[in-house]
């Protein structure tokens, strides 16, 4: 270990480009000489430091030879204000971080750091992993890192005229108060700061130099949409393709979301997702917050599944701060997470059908049981949606009296019945089949390449579920299957959710039966928590896909970096490729079957 640290230090101080000696003890250096220049944070989750000019060669090698076929997470950290010791001697300000997994072998991740050289440019990974598309745009938007070779490097969450890159540590929001909470300015000494005194319509907006909001026009025909094939005057009719915006307020876009399409007649030639209308820079807020304060904020990501969000964040912080969780709390977490999965899948089935035109009837039948589960959540946590139930080291409240009996009734009686009923009502329905079969097809290997996760890839025949591939919490104790379906179309994406909900019921039965008595909180994870210096990437199988939290601590009461790998957001990579060639009405359902929540997409 100490050897590795020594290596890291010596390499880190030398400029990466001119490093003449290649250390063959570092992994992958035999295959790609000079690719890995050192290790980073060997005491927590070790990451490899990669030379920027060798990045693409290394990624290709990892994908093709080592089986790391899934780019889970791509983000960036600005180390400008970093107070930890590990960063001593590193000149570069930014690290672009990659987390890779193997969907074939399962197991843990490989973490790569690329120190950004002077001109803020790194090679784009989109050529190797097309799934880097949206994530690199996000890093460009929020950090200003340019990715050479990215096909469509535009801002994604913020608008074109936004001044600055808000996730940089030296960027301050309008009416900036303090770097971190608790804000002293809102506390007595020195009087009040009233929100209303800071009118948000005043000097709230600044523009980059030379940018004029009045004369600027948004480019409508940009890369993917303008490159769509045109069919000039084909056949008898003189047709012409046109650009149509679906959204941002179209009711079927599941929130404020826009699909920019180029269509010819009813057929989609190209489609580009446009988002950011609900962007509130969750991550910047997260870095101002203390570790614990982020817990209720995670509820607001995927607001259908607050329990899973809590779960992922709690697991990440527990790993970082090394907090043990008592047995009963583990069971309670699994129970809540699986109830949430049932809620989400019922909701999603209902609204796939809604998008298909079966307006409200299946949706309302599906969410009848959802209401029962939300009642259970409310009884235990105090809220139906924003549960805020988990804490570092356990859960906050024990079950109230009679809860388990009710939960047993719901799990044993109602849920199997409603799932069977939905199956009877919908699966054989000729219209569902006609609209769903063969629509929105994308082969499994494309989905993996586009970093799509969750039910989407399982409906394409990839039996990949993090609960099995890299079991977290106590999922290795339960007996459940990972259902897969072969066709990768709308129908299978509907049906896979039904099957998964059944598996969740199976887990719930076991967990409710085995629920032990005892403590519900362990460790010291209160509001003064200061995890040791380090970084961690933890992901869970959230109902919508792979939900990951990438956290960096510099041993302060606030997270240094808090990044959410949001499944809805990254699954949108596949929206364009999946919709091309289908009708507009199909694109609506294709979006519905991805199952997005804009709270999580826009963060």
């Amino acid at each position, binding site marked *: 270990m100490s050897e590795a640290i020594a290596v890291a230090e010596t390499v880190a101080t030398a400029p990466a480009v001119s490093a003449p000696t290649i250390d063959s003890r570092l992994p992958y250096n035999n295959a790609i000489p000079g690719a890995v220049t050192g290790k980073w944070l060997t005491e927590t989750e070790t990451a490899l430091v990669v030379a920027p000019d060798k990045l693409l060669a290394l990624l290709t090698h990892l994908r093709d030879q080592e089986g790391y076929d899934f780019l889970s997470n791509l983000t960036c950290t600005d180390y400008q204000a970093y107070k930890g010791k590990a960063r001593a001697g590193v000149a570069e300000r930014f690290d672009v971080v990659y987390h890779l997994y193997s969907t074939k072998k399962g197991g843990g991740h490989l973490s790569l750091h690329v120190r950004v050289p002077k001109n803020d440019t790194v090679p784009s990974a989109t050529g190797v992993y097309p799934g880097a598309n949206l994530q690199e745009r996000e890093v460009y938007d929020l950090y200003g890192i340019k990715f050479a070779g990215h096909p469509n490097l535009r801002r994604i969450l913020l608008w074109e005229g936004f001044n600055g890159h808000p996730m940089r540590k030296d960027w301050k929001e309008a009416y900036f108060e303090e770097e971190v*909470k*608790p*804000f002293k300015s*809102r*506390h*007595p*000494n*020195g*009087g*009040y700061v*009233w*929100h*209303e005194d800071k009118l948000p319509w005043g000097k709230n907006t600044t523009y980059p130099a030379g940018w004029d909001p009045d004369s600027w026009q948004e480019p409508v025909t940009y890369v993917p949409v303008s490159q769509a094939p045109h069919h000039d005057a084909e056949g008898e009719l003189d047709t012409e393709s046109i650009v149509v915006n679906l959204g941002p307020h179209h009711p079927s876009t599941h929130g404020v979301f826009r699909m920019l399409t180029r269509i010819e007649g009813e057929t989609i030639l190209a489609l580009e997702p446009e988002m950011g209308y609900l962007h509130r820079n969750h991550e910047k807020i997260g870095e101002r*917050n*203390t570790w*614990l*304060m*982020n*817990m*209720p*904020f995670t509820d607001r990501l995927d607001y259908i599944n607050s329990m899973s969000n809590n779960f992922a964040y709690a697991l990440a912080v527990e790993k970082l701060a090394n907090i043990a969780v008592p047995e009963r709390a583990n069971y309670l977490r699994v129970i809540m997470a699986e109830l949430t999965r049932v809620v989400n899948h019922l909701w999603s089935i209902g609204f796939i059908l809604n998008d298909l035109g079966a307006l409200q*009837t299946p949706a*309302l*039948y599906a969410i*009848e049981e959802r*209401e*029962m589960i939300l*009642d259970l959540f*409310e*009884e*235990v*946590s*105090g*809220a139906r949606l*924003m549960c*805020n139930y988990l804490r570092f080291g356990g859960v*906050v*409240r024990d079950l*109230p*009296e009679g809860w388990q009996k*009710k939960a047993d*009734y*719901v799990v044993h*009686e*109602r849920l199997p019945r409603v799932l069977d*009923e939905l199956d*009877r*009502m*919908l*699966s*054989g*329905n*000729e*219209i*569902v*089949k006609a609209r769903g079969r063969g629509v929105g097809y994308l082969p499994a290997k494309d989905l993996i390449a586009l970093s799509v996760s969750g039910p989407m890839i399982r409906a394409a025949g990839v039996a990949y579920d993090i609960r099995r591939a890299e079991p977290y919490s106590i999922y290795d104790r339960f007996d459940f299957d990972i259902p897969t379906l072969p066709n990768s179309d709308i129908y299978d994406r509907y049906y896979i959710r039904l099957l998964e909900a059944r598996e969740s019921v199976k887990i719930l039965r076991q967990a409710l039966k085995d629920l032990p008595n005892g403590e519900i909180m362990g460790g010291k994870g*209160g*509001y003064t928590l200061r995890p040791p210096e380090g970084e961690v990437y933890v992901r869970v199988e959230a109902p919508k896909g792979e939900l990951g939290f990438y956290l960096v601590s510099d041993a302060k009461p606030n997270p240094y970096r808090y990044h959410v790998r949001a499944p809805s957001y990254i699954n949108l990579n596949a929206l364009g490729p999946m919709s091309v060639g289908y009708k507009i009405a199909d694109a609506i359902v294709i979006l519905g079957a991805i199952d997005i929540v804009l709270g999580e997409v826009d963060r």
Partner: protein
Amino acid sequence: MFGSGLLKGLGITLKHAMDTFTDDRKGVPSRYVDSIKLDGQRRVMQQPIDQEGLLTIQYPEEKRLLPERFRYIPMLIWDTALGEDLCTACGICAKVCPPQCIWIVRDSDAAGKPVARPAEFYIDAAVCMSCSFCVEFCPFDAIKMNHDYELAVYDRYPQLVYDMEELTVPVEYYAALWPVQYAAEEEVRRKTKEADRAKEEAKALAAADRANVATAEKAVRSPEELQALKEQAAARAAAAKEKVGASAGNGSGTASVAVATSTPSDGDDADAKRARLEELKRKAAEKAKQRKDSGV
């Protein structure tokens, strides 16, 4: 056969319709089994977990029965036995508050020395995210979550910035709203008190009667009483608003726990409150300045 899937689906729709119809045919009274009757035709009801048909709660005539742990906006607890606020203005709630929506001003005595009670306490309900961290971390059981969710007003400011008067409720109200938790807290307090008393008795018998403070009555309310108390609290809040209107600039201090039945008029109320908040703001600034000048 083509179309059989459709027919099967329609059969399920029909079954739902029938179930709902039968539920309703059992008559309106059975819809209200275990429900709580309020004034007029209003009811608080709960969907039975084995309900077969679809149940629609006709809000606002009918309301859902909220579970004890329901959390909405915090409230401050007024100890009626001791006649004082339980809050000591320690400021932990303000520190742990994720959106930082709590403002506290510590009170000071005539000499300008800070004392352990709040002079002012504000919660910006428009910012509050109902996470209940303030409740979790309060060492004095002085702040709890209220169930009252009908808070709609015309203006965010100043109506949604709640001051101490609007936030304070008597401990009986809390005990009725959160019976299980209150009983558990009482149990803890009783044990601590017993332990203290045993210690003191062992020390000196003379101190015994001083330690023998009458323990607060354990209040377990029926749902009817609970509702009644909720209504009372609403009326009280209204009364407090009126009172504020009448005595703008009167300063903060004692929280009114009197029950009144009058209703507020929104326009005057808002203006009065704005004026009073301005006054309070000015006073607090003055106080802060004094404290600064005197070097405390």
